[in-house]
């Protein structure tokens, strides 16, 4: 575990993954998109709108997977003080929010032709909306502190609290919805499932793969970027500290070789 705590080690592995993830993602998109958009047949019930599924479901899948990764990263950060795990969570969060948003929007664009309304207070839809808010909360909290390190820990705790609550929220919402609302349309998912056959599954899986590898590739980019941000912060801090010392004596001291720093102790 602690092998990965070292940023250099961690980034070596991440950088090794990068070309594979990026390449696979591009290839899968190149194969999957034409199939999804052109060659796959329209669904007999949903006709052409079924094509929305090939972006909707991968987005929803990523939204959930990313929260899982963030929860794991936050736990590793809080328990083992693993700084890279936290950077991974931090770098993932905006992507998670974007994909949750995409799942919601594409879902709404699917709902209007299928159900005649953009929005239903269906259990699954609703718990996704709440997931979106959890992502926003994580981002807002991490951003709210003057000292970025404080934001890191607070956001990690929030992420863990949220992951305890997600199942509770999910089941409550499911239950709430079935209690109040048998009247409105049932979620299309079941309807689709019955008709699922290879012609739909193939593009779906291709797009799922493309999205997933895309996430890992961009994650590596964002990790590099986060690491650099931390380094820049440090550099800036020591620049300010250096400039604070104006008298020449102090200036001289600031450039002492760190190996020769005083070790004197006071007794």
């Amino acid at each position, binding site marked *: 575990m602690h092998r990965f705590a070292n940023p250099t080690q961690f980034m070596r592995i991440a950088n090794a993954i990068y070309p594979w993830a990026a390449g696979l993602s591009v290839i899968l998109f190149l194969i999957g998109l034409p199939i999804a958009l052109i060659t796959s047949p329209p669904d007999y019930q949903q006709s052409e709108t079924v094509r929305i599924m090939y972006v909707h479901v991968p987005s929803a899948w990523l939204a959930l997977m990313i929260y899982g990764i963030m929860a794991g990263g936050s736990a590793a950060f809080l328990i083992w003080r693993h700084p890279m795990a936290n950077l991974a969570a931090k770098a993932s969060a905006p992507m998670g929010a974007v994909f949750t948003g995409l799942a919601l929007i594409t879902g709404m664009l699917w709902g209007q032709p299928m159900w005649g309304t*953009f929005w239903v207070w269906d259990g699954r839809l*609703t718990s996704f909306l709440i997931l979106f808010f959890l992502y926003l909360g994580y981002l807002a909290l991490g951003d709210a502190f003057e000292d970025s390190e404080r934001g890191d820990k607070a956001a990690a705790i929030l992420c863990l609290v949220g992951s305890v609550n997600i199942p509770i929220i999910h089941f409550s919402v499911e239950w709430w919805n079935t209690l109040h*609302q048998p*009247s*409105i349309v049932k979620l299309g998912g079941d309807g689709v499932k019955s008709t699922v056959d290879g012609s739909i599954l193939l593009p779906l899986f291709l797009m799922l793969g493309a999205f997933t590898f895309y996430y890992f590739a961009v994650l590596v980019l964002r990790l590099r970027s986060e690491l650099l941000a931390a380094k820049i912060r440090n550099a800036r801090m020591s620049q300010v500290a250096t400039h604070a010392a104006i008298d020449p004596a102090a200036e001289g001291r600031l450039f002492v070789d760190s190996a020769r720093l005083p070790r004197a102790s006071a007794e």
Partner: protein
Amino acid sequence: MSVFTAVLARDLRLALRQSADSLTVVAFFAIATVLFPFGVGPEASVLARIAGGVVWVTALLAALLSLDRIFTVDYEDGTLDQLVLTGAPLPVVVLAKVVAHWLTTGVPLIIISPVLAVTLHLPAAGYGPLMLALLLGTPTVSLVGAVGAALVLGTRRGGVLLSLLILPLYIPVLIFGTAAIEATVTGVSAGPMLTVLAGFMVLALTLSPWATAAALRQAVE
């Protein structure tokens, strides 16, 4: 006017640097609105019936929460002292700050309101009046709220106290704001209600900067 533009530009720049600030207001608006279906139940017909009122009430509460901070930071870091001492008329400074507040919180609320209206199943005819009413009403909300925010400077408990002072004053705006939506949905013209809202805005625009300036002066004493 250079004071007006300087203060406005600075507040907008600060809001952009700390963009999470206006985003959180929008987020509160969205979340508080979304609570209602859970409380009231998911039936589209019931939600549609109360949609306009719910959007307005939560917009008022969201504006209120953000108003809480409109002068606090300047007060705490000493900027307010300096703004009182610019030598320019204080109401102008106040107006610049209120305009900046409205642009960074009122406008995002207006923009996102149709999305929330969709989730509450507001009839499509209501979107236009909803946005128009918010456009005419939120400046009044910011202006009146500024008076309250200036009055509670330096008290603990700013937030809750502010709601006590200000929420009752918002009731006329709320009544005509929701009436405008109601009217359109039921096929009547919303014109008169919107005119009244505009009237409120003009009234607030002429009175509130002076009242706020007076309150700020006693806050820095």
